[in-house]
């Protein structure tokens, strides 16, 4: 299944400047893998060394955080809008 994946600004330089790309996959993990396959420069931003999702990246399906749906195993809905978003955090601690 082909879905639309929205890329954050910081990834667009690794994807030919595109803000949105099409990717194939039946699960969120497969969709992310397809983005990496098409745009290898995104790999270090999206993938953890263990093959999972980078710990500072969040993925949303139709504006729902996939961590609360089923993580990378979450089945992709037909026509879903997938958004990749950097986790922005820090502090004085």
């Amino acid at each position, binding site marked *: 299944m082909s879905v639309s994946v929205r890329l954050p600004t*910081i990834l667009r330089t690794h994807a030919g400047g595109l803000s949105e790309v099409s990717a194939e996959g039946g699960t969120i993990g497969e969709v992310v893998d397809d983005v990496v396959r098409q745009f290898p420069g995104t790999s270090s931003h999206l993938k953890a060394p263990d093959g999972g999702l980078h710990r500072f990246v969040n993925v949303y399906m139709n504006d729902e955080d996939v961590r609360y749906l089923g993580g990378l195993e979450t089945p992709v809905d037909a026509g879903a809008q997938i958004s990749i978003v950097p986790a922005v955090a*820090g502090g004085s601690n």
Partner: protein
Amino acid sequence: MLRILRQQWLEMVGLALDCVPEEACGLLAGPPGDTVASFWPCPNADHSARTYAIDGLDLLRVERALDEGGEDHQIFGIMHSHTHTDAYPSPTDIERAELLGPWHFLIVSLRYPDAQARCYRIIDGVVTEEPIELGPG
């Protein structure tokens, strides 16, 4: 170099004060370069005096608004406050900057009676301070 307008600076300090005792945060956006065209206050999802986090949906909201603005403006920086410490990136700030490579990191410190701001680039864990130019308006 980061260029901000006086009005934006006042807005950032106001936000930092309004959020006490919690840390405040917001996103900096503009055309490619160093000039802040818009400041986007965001709720601190951590509601903490020692950490901040911007909810991914808030970041998405800002990115969509910028895309719809059609002016090629992008998020290129983050402002956050330190309520009781100097305006220098903490180990957490440095660690969490990993994916935000070219962003400007503006820190507003409320440690002293007058708010202070300093700005940094954090690339591959290396912190480099950059000047802030305050413009009129």
